[in-house]
């Protein structure tokens, strides 16, 4: 019984870490940047961006909307620009199932409402 438990735990951990190491669908631009080794310039710590991105976005949204501070850092537009993928030469909406945002949010059962207002693909046209 204990052996089974250990095996089970070992399997559970490997799958957790496997999941933690790579994202199923990183998006086109983000994959390029990762391959060029530049992703740490943008997100110095993976744990941080995973845990804190809602706070970053919230802080940024108030500064932009209410104070007119428009910077690229923590801007939802830039998230969409890097983390969108293309299929048949067209962008897939980032909130579609299996796209960058949805993979985790589905897994943890978070339903979020950014994209009933915000554009789901990078700027008009490819």
């Amino acid at each position, binding site marked *: 019984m204990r052996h089974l438990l250990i095996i089970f735990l070992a399997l559970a951990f490997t799958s957790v870490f496997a999941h933690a190491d790579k994202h199923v669908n990183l998006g086109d631009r983000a994959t390029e940047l990762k391959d060029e080794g530049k992703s740490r310039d943008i997100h110095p710590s993976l744990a941080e961006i995973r*845990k804190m991105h809602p706070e970053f976005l919230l802080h940024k*949204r108030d500064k932009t909307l209410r104070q007119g*501070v*428009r910077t690229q850092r923590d801007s939802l537009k830039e998230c969409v620009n890097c983390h969108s993928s293309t299929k048949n030469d067209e962008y897939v909406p980032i909130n579609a199932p299996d796209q960058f945002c949805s993979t985790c949010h589905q897994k943890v059962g978070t339903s979020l409402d950014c994209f*009933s*207002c915000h*554009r789901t693909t990078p700027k*008009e046209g490819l």
Partner: protein
Amino acid sequence: MNKELNRRDFLKNTTAVTAGVATIASGITLTTFAANDNPVTNEKRWGMLVDTNKLTESNINDMVNACQEENGWGSEIHSTGHQKPSWIKKIKVKDKVTGKIDMLPMMCQHCEHPPCVDVCPTNASMKREDGIVLVDKHLCIGCRYCMMACPYDARSFVHEDLSNQKEHMPRGKGTVESCTMCVHRVDKGEMPACAEAVSSNGVIFGDLYDANSKINQTLKKIQSTQIRTDLNLNTGVRYSGI
């Protein structure tokens, strides 16, 4: 640069172009990239002067089209009649005594004392320091009090699901919207799309407080008026020729 980060410092630091890393109590590192964009201040007040004598009906149509094109409204398919958003519209005013007819573009007047902000229960309806009145759609609950309160019928409610919005202009079902004075362009130093669409001096956009600005100087010289001056809202949009 290592330092304790608090909100005040964070806001203060935005003047310098620096990247800082701060460690907060739980051991999480917060990376802050302060940018050289400063918060807008009340040293400026953006406004517009519309000269109806210089605007033809087709100029006004151009303004409406430019706004639709820029901000992505007007192609709603399920909304009918008054449900359709309209951020700027062409209206006809007639002097009953003389019979003189004027056409004018009507949009949010960016009031200094905006009734839409007074009535909003969630603080969604707001005025920026530089006088631009906006809806924070993150907070808007769609109660539409502001639509009732606005004397200029300047606001619209989005009745249907939308997609393919403009990148710079998020819009969505269940929230109220209105002319933003093209705030995304103004912040880049450009002028609103409607003003740009008119090549004559029919629409002058600028800083009402800046004594050297064209709008300030023109307002000093010519006869102009606010619509519904009696309400004492001190609008940012002024008209002449009516």
